[in-house]
């Protein structure tokens, strides 16, 4: 499902003396089945943009096309359930939203709200728990007796069980250990590749953006600063540092090496694997 934003503007506390502009003139396109990363400094408006994707916030100007539905500024929107089902959002620290007595009931909360019958919802809960890498036995336990990392997984399973077409992730791995972080990101990526899920990732990690995204949206001071493929974005270090970001570690490493070698490598490598491959190829050629 495609999502298109056109000149979207939002202000917090609009119409009160505390009014504050959050985003303005934000336009970009999230094509169906793609993995889009939104990067930017804290306060750049990433989270505000994200809440527009399933109409938790309504734009004050501009419009948003979500699949076949168009949300226009100033119009009263009714019956947003379908949009909310199709666009699942995993908020930052989603473990704070758990409330049920058992993990199973909590995961079923979303599906029940969208009218999925009991048996099917339970089946979805089992599948979702497996997807996030937890044993099925966890279903009968209280979410509050799990560890922080497990709670995070349960919360993510709760959104996956809604079977959304678009999965929006706001820093889903913040505070997880490196292993959990890697597993989680791989899981999202495989869902996108195998099931055709559209993924939107808000992240501070340039490494994740470089590795997984098909397209990157750079936000700065409430505006879209630049969009492009990871190669476009990370080739231009100056525009990244200008807004307080930087290239991924691998790119930094490659640049240092190029300085030592006195010549550039034939291509920009975004992941350690790519760089290793490139270096071994160079070595074979020089032998």
């Amino acid at each position, binding site marked *: 499902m495609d999502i298109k934003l056109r000149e979207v503007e939002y202000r*917090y*506390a609009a119409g*009160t*003396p*505390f009014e504050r502009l959050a985003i303005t003139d934000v336009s970009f396109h999230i094509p169906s089945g793609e993995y889009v990363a939104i990067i930017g400094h804290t306060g750049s408006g990433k989270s505000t943009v994200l*809440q527009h994707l*399933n109409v*938790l916030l309504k734009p004050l100007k501009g419009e948003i096309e979500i699949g076949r539905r168009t949300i226009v500024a100033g119009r009263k929107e009714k019956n947003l*359930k379908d949009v*909310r*089902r199709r666009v*699942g*959002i995993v*908020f930052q620290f*989603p473990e*704070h*939203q*758990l*409330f049920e007595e058992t993990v199973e009931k909590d995961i079923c*909360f*979303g599906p*029940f*709200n*969208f009218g999925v019958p009991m048996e099917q919802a339970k089946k979805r809960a089992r599948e979702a728990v497996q997807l996030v890498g937890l044993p099925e036995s966890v279903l009968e336990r209280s979410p*509050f007796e799990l560890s922080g990392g497990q709670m995070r997984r349960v919360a993510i399973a*709760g*959104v996956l069980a*809604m079977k959304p077409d678009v999965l929006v992730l706001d820093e889903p791995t913040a505070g997880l250990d490196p292993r959990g972080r890697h597993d989680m990101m791989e899981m999202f990526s495989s869902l996108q590749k195998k099931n055709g899920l559209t993924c939107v990732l808000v992240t501070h990690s340039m490494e994740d953006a470089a590795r997984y995204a098909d397209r990157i949206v750079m936000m700065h001071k409430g505006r879209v600063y630049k969009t492009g493929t990871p190669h476009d974005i990370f080739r231009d270090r100056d525009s990244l540092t200008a807004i307080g970001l930087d290239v991924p570690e691998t790119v930094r490493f490659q640049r240092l090496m190029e300085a030592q070698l006195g010549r550039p490598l034939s291509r920009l490598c975004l992941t350690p694997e790519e760089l290793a491959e490139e270096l071994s190829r160079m070595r074979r050629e020089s032998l």
Partner: protein
Amino acid sequence: MMEKIILGRYLPADSVIHRMDPRAKLMFIFGFVLIVFLANNVATYALLGAFTLFVVFLSKVKPQFLIAGLKPVIILILFTFFLHVFFTKEGELLAEIGFFTIYKGGVIKGIFISLRFFLLILVTSLLTLTTPPISVTDGIEALFGPLKKIKVPVHELALMMSISLRFIPTLLDETDKIMKAQMARGADFASGPILERVKAVIPLLIPLFVSAFKRAEELAVAMEARGYKGGEGRTKYRILAWKSRDTVSLVLLAVLAAALLVLRS
């Protein structure tokens, strides 16, 4: 939606009123609340009104903030006004609409009482608009200090108050976040029959309680880790300083009270 609450917010600025000692402000408000009840005719209300406007002017608070703060209580003010208009039967008869009769005395009384309400709320909201909550607590702690002698835990009460004030915005933020997270999972807080709506609050309340308790525990541990053990022997970071302007403000209030006593009928 939480961000629209204006009543009780502090607006940082630099004015005589902002710089006043919170103890003086609290005493002033207390005195003002008492003497508002002295007014009972046009002259006294005019004097009170002029005085209040003067204070508002001194505070440099933009009128729009005060008006926005008054919005939630405007219904209450209107209600009292109409109550008096319809049910006070004094003076000459002005109009008769079916069952209702309106007397001149009722209209005058209605205006006076709602004016009294209006002035009280204006001045008290000026306190919160010009004083950071933490200073209000400091002021209260200092004013009630003598009660420590009769074993009233003044310091602990003040601490409780400042902690609760400190966490109001945090909790509001948290409520907003959890609400959005549950709405993203299809929860509906705004429509449906009343029973459904009460049930819909559970997914909001439980996470809120969980996080409030967690936060309380973390705060307690953090305070203990830094050696906190109550008010005994604890020095202060913010030291209250009574200046001549504070004395002047209370003298002005006394003059106002005297003038009202002379002018009231």
